[in-house]
């Protein structure tokens, strides 16, 4: 293949990947008149921020954003707190039980979420946790757990066992060795897993749809869908504006962790 052809192909990819994003941005900055015009314009003739103000006026974006924040932070903290000791054990002690547990994490991906959401819904209903943020958090922890375990196990494995053993031999004792030697090395991995769990929860839609029934407890993805009316007639400008805002936290966090996420993913893929 000649170089020109390669550039043409790469350009094709860039266009395919970028055009919906640019269109979203463009729509968010357009006036209703311009949107109704027959010829679509890429760059709004009279860019406006009115759509953002309208978005806040039409739906309770602040409330929904705060609720999403609470659920996502709680999910991230609980998931990592539960998964970290587990991941350490899975990485360091390779017994049959550990192999089965990590094998299960993989196998569990095959099951469709309905098989999890229905029993969880029934349990939550018995505990009076349907329609509560606590209930949604429990479900999100369940949903993020396998991947968090997988990632953390990879990061623990990357800490050379010799370091830990050397510290333990020096008379530091196993726990002190963990705290002094292993913990600092794990910090970046733990942060990456926290942020990944946050993003997963912040973006999650199906479980929220099932668990949260009232507008007063809705999280952001549910509120976004409200911009599309029952008849599919949407006010496109505010919809685009709100969509953009809702994506910002995920994008920022993702930018921070993406390289670590890749290595976490690879650790699993290569060393099953």
């Amino acid at each position, binding site marked *: *293949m000649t170089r020109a052809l*390669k*550039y043409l192909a*790469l350009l094709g*990819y*860039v266009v395919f*990947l*970028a*055009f*919906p*994003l640019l269109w*979203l941005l463009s*729509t968010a900055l357009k006036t209703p008149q311009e949107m109704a015009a027959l010829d679509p314009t890429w760059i709004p003739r009279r860019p406006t921020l009115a759509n953002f103000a309208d978005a806040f006026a039409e739906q309770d974006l602040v409330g929904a954003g705060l609720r999403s924040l609470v659920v996502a932070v709680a999910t991230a903290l609980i998931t990592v707190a*539960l*998964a970290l*000791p*587990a991941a350490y*054990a899975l*990485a*360091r*002690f*390779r*017994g049959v039980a*550990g192999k089965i547990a990590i094998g*299960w*994490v993989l196998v*569990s991906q*095959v*099951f*469709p*979420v*309905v*098989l*999890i959401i*229905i*029993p969880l819904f029934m349990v939550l209903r018995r505990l009076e946790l349907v329609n509560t943020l606590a209930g949604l958090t429990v479900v999100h922890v*369940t949903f993020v*757990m396998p991947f968090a*375990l997988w990632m953390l196990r990879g990061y623990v*494995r990357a*800490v*050379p066992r010799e370091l830990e053993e050397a510290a333990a031999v020096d008379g530091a004792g196993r726990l002190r060795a963990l705290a002094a030697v292993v913990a600092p090395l794990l910090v970046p991995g733990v942060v990456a897993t926290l942020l990944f769990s946050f993003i997963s929860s*912040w973006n999650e*839609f199906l479980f929220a*749809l099932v668990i949260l029934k009232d507008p007063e407890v809705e999280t952001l*993805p549910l509120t*976004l*869908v409200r911009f*599309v009316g029952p008849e599919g007639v949407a006010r496109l400008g505010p*919809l685009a504006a709100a*969509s953009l805002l*809702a994506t910002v936290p995920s994008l920022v*966090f993702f*930018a921070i962790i993406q*390289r670590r996420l890749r*290595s976490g993913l*690879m*650790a699993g*893929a290569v*060393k099953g």
Partner: protein
Amino acid sequence: MTALAERPYGRAGGGSRRGPRSGGGLALLLPALVPVLVFSVGPLIYGILLAFTDARSGRNTETSFVGLENFAELLSDGDFWESFRIGMIWGLSVTVLQFLASLGLALLLNQDLRLRGVARVLAVVPWAMPPVVVGLMWRLVYHPDAGLLNGLFGTHVDWLHDFSFALPAVIVVGVWTGMPQTTVVLLAGLQNVPKELYEAVSVDGAGAWRRFWNVTLPQLRPVIVAITSLDFVWNINQFSLVYVLTQGGPGGRTRLPMLFAYEEAFRYGFFGYAATLGVAITIVVLAVLGLYLWRQAREGD
């Protein structure tokens, strides 16, 4: 952003030596097993058991064991088969297209080209976006009046509500969303192919195509098998994206199995039946994957 794929983690900590005394190991494995049991194994077993009951959503309804009744009903349910057919078309075409598109992109990103930085950033953005936003964004693209597509083509098609265009339109969005993970994994695989192999065939005077066919592809094989398997599982279980795009319409043309199960469970309240559907899809996925992995293993020998 520098090298997309670093060396895989975990090489350093390897070794198959046993850990220190197994007593301490067991105590440490407990925190590993408890979350997995409580949050993953437990709900799934409960869910699978529900498939053999007539569980309903009502608070005080009696639930009883019905054996394989739900499965019999499922097999004679025309709506299920239609949803199943759509699910397979969706799952297979998105997985294949996503793989081909990502392989092409990964090969380009692996070369010294100028636009590479931009393309790399763009290639991971869909990964970070909430599926709901992806759905809403593409609704704007496909919008019959204010949309981009009709404006560009001078057509007046309501893409997402058209009986013949809806499914292809949704498949395009599926490919767009799923490309990042696949591209990243394939690129990592490409960068792990030993350079010496290429040098060896270059000496033979092999062209780019032969190099790709004889070196790259065989070396990538395990990675390709792993990522396409995962993609297939993820795609067949897709819900949010299509729910936001079409809600399964028009006339059920994009009603993937998970949308069908969602409706059965949470619109009509048939928990048992929806669980049966989940089990049935699991069996199909396992069968497809089994066949695929078995064939790959045999050809790999």
